[in-house]
Structure formats: C-alpha cells, structure tokens
C-alpha cells in the first residue's frame, strides 16, 4: 500500500547461520518498509525462527548485514534490539505469571520516581498502550496468570510497543488463539501498520498471511525461495513454493495388504476434568489423526486414554472389553503406548544411554522380557535407521530425529497394539519425519491401531484415514480422509457446525 514509497526501515542481507556445522540459514535477506505487514512463511525447519532470532539478537549471525533505520546494527541481545526499535513477540511467552500486566510490560525498565519504582506511572502507561490498541478488557493491575492466552499475547505486544518499536516481529502469534481472538489480533496488527510500524509476520496459517500481508517471503530449507507482493500469489502457488514438491509425495501411502480390522480402542462419552463427551473408535490397521488448536484438549485426550488423568465419565473398551485405565502402568500392560509431545522432558532420560532408554518401559513393566528385548534392540534400532555411535551413547548427544526414534524404539519394545502419538514429528528433520511416517504405515499393516495428534495440518491430512478435530475439550468433528485444511481449521476454531456434539 503506502509501504514501498518510504525508505525501508529494515534491510537484512545475506544472513547465514549454522549450528554445530549444520547450516540452517544460507544467504537470506528481506526488506521491510514502514507500515508494511510482511509475511514470512516456510515449512517447519525452513529457518523462519532462526531468521527472526538473528534479527532480534538472540543468535549471532555467521555472515550478512542488518540495517535498521539506515544504520548497520549487530545486536547481541534482544533487549538491545528492542531499545533500537526492533521488538520481537516470541512464540513462547516471556511473561511472569505471578506479576501484574504492568509489571510485566515494564520488566527491566521500571520507571522510577525519587529512587522508587513509580507504580502509578507504570499502570498509567500500560493503560494508555492498551487503550491505543483498543483493548479495555485487560486490567493493568491483574496478575498475568489470570489472563487468557489471547490476552497474554496482547500483553506481549504491548510490551513490544512500550519500547516504541518501529519493527515488530511476531512468531506464530495466532498459534494459541481461537477464531474471534484472531480477528482481534488482525485489528491490532492493522492498527500498528497504520501507525507506520513495520511488521514481520510469521505464520503457518496461509489464510492469515493472505489476509494481512502485502508482501510474502518464502523460505525453504534455510534458503530464500521468493519475495513478492501477496496479490501475485495464490494459496496453491505459495504451498508449492514452501514445500517444493506436491504434498502427496511427502507422505507414504498405506502399505499393500493393510486391512481394517476389529476395533482396538473405543471411547463412548469419555470425559474427565479436561475433555468431555469424546466418542472415538480406533480399529486395527487404522491411522486416525487428531487436529485442533493448542489447548483444545488433544493432549488431554490421549492422557485420558493412557491413564495419566483417567476418564471419570463414559466408557472405554479395549478389543471390545470394557477397561478402566487409571495409571500409565496399567495402560502399558494393556498394550497401549503413548509417545509424548515433549520428548526431552517426558520421553527420554537424556543423560542415559540409548540402550537404557530403549529398554526403560520393558524393564519397569515387563521385567521378564528384558533380555529378549535387549537381544532384539540392535535390530529395532537399525530398522528405525537410528544414527549413533552405538547403543551406549547418551541420548542427549543425538539429533532430535534420532532421539525421537529412540522414543519409538522404547515403545515398540512393548509390542503395543494401540499407539498414541502426540506430535510425533515436532522439531525433527524431513528425513526422520519420513522414517516416522513409514513406521506408522508399517505398524498399521501389522494391525496396530494408531492415533496421531499433530499441529501440522498437511501431516494430519497426508497420514490419516479419519480425522478427529478437538475444540474446547470436545471432539467437535470427525472428518474423512483428505479433508481440506479450511474445513479442519473451521472445526478446530469452532466455526464448523457438524459432527459429534459440535456445539452446546
């Protein structure tokens, strides 16, 4: 719009970065004009976050230049960048839940009056910033823990604004927001742009990118694919540039000879404090995808099945027989495996060896099968293509993908017939992803029933025989295979009215 007329506020050229010899960004640059909303897209691992963190000074670049307001800059700390007018709203909130909104906004820069913190001024200025954004529902004096996620997101933005930012980077700002909250964020972004703030907007949701951005930059495998006006792009073209190949090629088809068998796991009206009224049937040889926004109750659903937070209502059946799972141990005994979302915190003992990790569950639940599992271990690891210096290597030194394979090996050792996967490919490279997909197909062929939670819609669409969408603690819809992203997102944000118990 008015962006290109003015002199650019930020120019990044030829940014490069590698970690431990792996290049994650090679020669990427872009130009931001005042008042411009610039979309940055790419698959997971394309280098978007690294690029933002280089701009913000979280990482130091290996090569390239950054010019902010006509001056060459080299930030070594996000606070430096913020003071210079480049603020970042990171995906993980940098807020203290126990402190108030005002205290968070001015954290590290508390205004002083006669040597003491001027709380009145802090509140007043926070209030003024909130008013500027047209937000009147947030109390500057409220502890942050009492706010909703969307409100916390706004506090982050206010924090960025309070430094008089000329450039604001936002990393997946809508990842945790519901539909109407996204609208509010749109309004805020547009208001900021109208004031002449340049915004670098990173999102996986292409609809948002097209709704908000005038210019779109595409990254793939750490390199720049294209930069151009959004008006010259279509969604299909954008996806093609991001993926570099049709989505279908990425996901293996079901293996020949896979047959749909008896129901392995059935839920009828299952619920606890976090999910409610979930009906679900999982049959042998089937892969069911679970989509939904963060906080929609996806993880809580599998935790209910696995007995971490047992269901208190409804019925659960295993192979047709009623079962009441009240502990993880009981779940493992009944042939259920849960590959947790956070492998470092919940999946692995990081400073133990591959062998110890892979035998962890067997040793503790099926101790008598330990020696048998130990004999089979090398075979299992090589079938998963784990790259390591040997089974004695500590898992903390493995790459993310190989760590995830060790987690899978750990669960495969128990010979489960129901496998629950929570974000199985988060933060792992493409090769490892494909290995995980192939493994899922192989398990399905062997008659295992698979439930896969994923935030990446292409993955859900590419792998699932059916798709369950969670919204606000309930299964809001059950969609057939190959449903399109728009339908899934509509169900996930509660705007789709169909399926099982969609709305109250």
């Amino acid at each position: 719009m008015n962006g290109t007329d003015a002199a650019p506020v930020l120019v990044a050229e030829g940014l490069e970065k590698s970690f431990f010899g792996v290049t994650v960004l090679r020669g990427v640059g872009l130009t931001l004009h005042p008042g411009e909303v610039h979309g940055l897209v790419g698959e997971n691992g394309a280098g978007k976050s690294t690029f933002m963190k280089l701009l913000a000074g979280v990482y130091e670049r290996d090569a390239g230049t950054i010019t902010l307001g006509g001056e060459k800059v080299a930030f070594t700390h996000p606070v430096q960048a913020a003071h210079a007018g480049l603020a970042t709203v990171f995906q993980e909130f940098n807020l203290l839940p126990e402190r108030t909104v005002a205290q968070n906004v001015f954290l590290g820069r508390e205004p002083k009056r006669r040597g003491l913190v001027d709380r009145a001024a802090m509140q007043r200025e926070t209030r003024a910033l909130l008013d500027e954004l047209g937000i009147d529902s947030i109390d500057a004096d409220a502890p942050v823990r009492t706010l909703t996620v969307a409100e916390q997101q706004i506090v982050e933005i206010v924090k960025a604004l309070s430094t008089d930012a000329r450039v604001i980077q936002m990393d997946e700002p809508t990842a945790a927001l519901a539909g109407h909250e996204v609208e509010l964020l749109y309004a805020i972004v547009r208001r900021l742009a109208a004031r002449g703030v340049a915004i670098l907007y990173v999102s996986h949701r292409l609809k948002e990118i097209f709704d908000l951005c005038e210019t779109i930059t595409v990254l793939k495998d750490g390199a720049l694919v294209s930069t151009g006006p959004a008006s010259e792009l279509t969604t299909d073209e954008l996806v093609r540039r991001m993926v570099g190949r049709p989505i279908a090629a990425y996901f293996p088809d079901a293996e020949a000879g896979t047959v749909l068998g008896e129901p392995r796991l059935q839920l009828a009206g299952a619920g606890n404090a976090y999910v409610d009224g979930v009906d679900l049937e999982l049959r042998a040889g089937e892969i069911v995808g679970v989509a939904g926004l963060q906080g929609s109750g996806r993880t809580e659903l599998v935790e209910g099945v696995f007995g971490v937070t047992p269901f208190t209502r409804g019925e659960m059946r295993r192979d047709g027989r009623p079962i009441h799972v009240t502990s993880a141990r009981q779940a493992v005994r009944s042939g259920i495996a849960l590959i947790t979302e956070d492998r470092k915190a919940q999946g692995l003992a990081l400073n133990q060896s591959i062998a110890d990790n892979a035998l962890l569950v067997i040793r503790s639940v099926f101790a008598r099968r330990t020696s048998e599992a130990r004999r089979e271990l090398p075979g299992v690891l090589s079938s998963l293509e784990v790259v390591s210096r040997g089974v004695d290597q500590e898992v903390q030194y493995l790459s993310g993908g190989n760590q995830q394979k060790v987690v899978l090996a750990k669960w495969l050792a128990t010979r489960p017939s129901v496998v629950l996967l929570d974000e199985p490919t988060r933060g792992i490279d493409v090769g490892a992803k494909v290995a995980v997909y192939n493994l899922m197909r192989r398990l399905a062929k062997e008659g295992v029933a698979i439930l896969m939670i994923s935030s990446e819609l292409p993955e859900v669409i590419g792998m699932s025989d059916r798709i369950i969408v969670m919204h606000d603690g309930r299964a809001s819809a059950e969609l057939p295979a190959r449903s399109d992203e728009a339908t899934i997102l509509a169900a996930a944000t509660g705007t789709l009215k169909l399926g099982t118990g969609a709305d109250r």
Partner: protein
Amino acid sequence: MSTGTLSEAPVRKPRRRRLDASLIVGIALVGVIIIGSVLVASVGRNFFSAGNIRDILTGMSVLGFVAIGQTLVILCASLDLSVPYVVSLSSLIAADMMAGNPGNIPAAVLTVLVVAALIGTANGLIVTKLKVNGFIATLGTGLIIKGYLDTNYKGTSGNVPWEFQLIGATGVGPVPVSTLIMLGVAVLGALFLARTRTGSHMFAVGGNEQVARLSGIRTARPVIIAHVLCSMTAALAGLLLASRLGVGSPTVGSQGGYDLLSIAAVVLGGTLLLGGRGSIWGTIGGVAIFAVVDSVMSVMQVNPFLKDVVRGIVIVAAVAVYTARITERRRPRFTSTGASDAAGGGIAGGGRGAGSAGQGTPAVVQEEQA
C-alpha cells in the same frame, strides 16, 4: 459463549484474584490464636496476658530477622543454610568487640554488619558466578564458618555492656524493643520488594530466569543482593541474641536451628520454595504461628519432644496445603458431571461475566508451551 452478560455490565472487571497467600497465613494465624487461647484458658491461664504476649513477641524477633532475609533469598529461587553460623559469628564478634565498654557498641555493630555483608556477597557470588546451587553453596560457607568457630572458640566469649543488653530486655508496654526493630526491618523489606527495581527483579529472577534475562535484567545482581541482605538480617539476629545473653556464643545459632526453621517459616508464609512468589508479611505470619504454637505448648507444659512433633506437623500440613494449590495449575475445563466449567474466555466480546469463568483455557495452554 454469552455476550449477554456484557450488555448488562459493559466493562465491569471482576477481581479474578486467587485468595492471596499472605491472607491465608493471616487467617491461619487467627485460627491458631483462637485455638491456643482456648487451650491456655483450659489450664486456667490467660493467653492475652501482657506477660504471655511479651513472651510470644520475644520468641518472634530472632527468627523474624532471619526469616525476613531468608524470604528474599528464597524469592530469588536460592536458599541460605549458612544463617545459623552467621548468627553465632555475629554474636561473638559483637560481644568480643564491645568487651563491656558501651563506647565500642557502634563500631562493633558496624563490624558485625560488614562481616555479614561480606559473607552474603561470597554466598551470592558462589551461587551466581560459580553456578553452585544455593543449597550446596551456603551449606559449604556455613561449614567453613562453623569450622572457624569450633577452632577458635571453646565456649561463650566477650562481654556485652548493659546499655546494649537493654535492647533485648526493655519494651514498650508488652511489646519488646527487639520486636519493634524486627517489624521495622520487615517494613523496610516489604517496601524494598514492592518499590525498588531490585526488589521487582528478585521476583522476576526467581520466577523465570530466562524471562528475566530476555527482559534485559542483569540476573546475578538481585540474587547477590538477596544473599547479602539475608546474611545481614542474620547478623541482626546474632546481635539481638548477644544482647539477651550478655555474651557471644559459638553455638547459639545452630542450637536455634535457624536455617531450617527460617525456611519453614518462609514456606509457611506462602512463599514458593521455587521462587518468584511470596511476601515478607506472609513470612512474619509464619514466624508468628510458630511463636504462638511454641508459647501455647510452653504454657501447657507439653513434653519438649512433643513440641517438635507438633512443629513438624504444622510445617508438613502447611506445605501440603500450598502444594495442593500449586499443582492445580492446569485448571479443569469440565466439572465432574461433564458440565462446561469455563466460559470461552474472550477478549473483545468478553464472555467473562462472572466469577472465575474464562480461566480454564489459558492454564492448559501455558502448560503445553512450558
């Protein structure tokens, strides 16, 4: 959900505060006083007699000093186990330097505070620069001081002049001067936490060091200052004990068990042992609860071993209550009958008409992101 409530009460902001921890301590304290006064009355004594109140307040002051400092350290997510030895060392330095001469009092007090500040600086530097866990770091410095004391002192030492002993002996009505000084320090401590940058940053560093660092806070400073202040309040406790005893003693600190008792009082006062949340006044409440319980048991002539049992039960019960509150971080979305517990917490449309509605979702997501 319902935007209907909104039209009736447009921008009404319900106070969505969890019951404040120091308020809970206050209620607990009142409860303990009521039970205590009944028990004391049952043996024919008056809990609210001037003498009894003076005893309770006297019992509060030494532990109070130590616990105020300990609160700061624990807020920063550290610990100080060296306090009992700082207490003993301070009493000895004070008594030795005073040597019965009132003219030496200012110099002695100043020296004690400087020495304590140096010990605190050492603790703080070890914790922040050498990255030694506070528990171990202060266990180490405490042992070093203990070793010094055991080698150089075979028993009590020095002589505190009468003028200094007055601090521990006089009072305004039933309120001892020492308690007034302790409460004065508590006021300063509370002000420091609420109204200075360093105080604010203590909450930040203890709450989430990463967030604090990314906000541009020099994260070592608040921790070091907390350790310095903690050692200095322990020194004040040592001075008070010297004033009461008239001599310095190498074992007065460890006999008092001020390390673990002060930590217990802080936790009893609602401060998170993990740091980031808490208050001085909660701690004072915790100290008062201990003092009241002790006093009631003395009046009732409870067997001294049973006293420890009761203290132990109080500590465990209090922490169990707080832990129950803390672990409930992921708020339930549905009640046991399956009714939706949380209204869709919106921003623009608000749907947060009443009570705690709208709080369900964020906690869940926060935990997923953690």
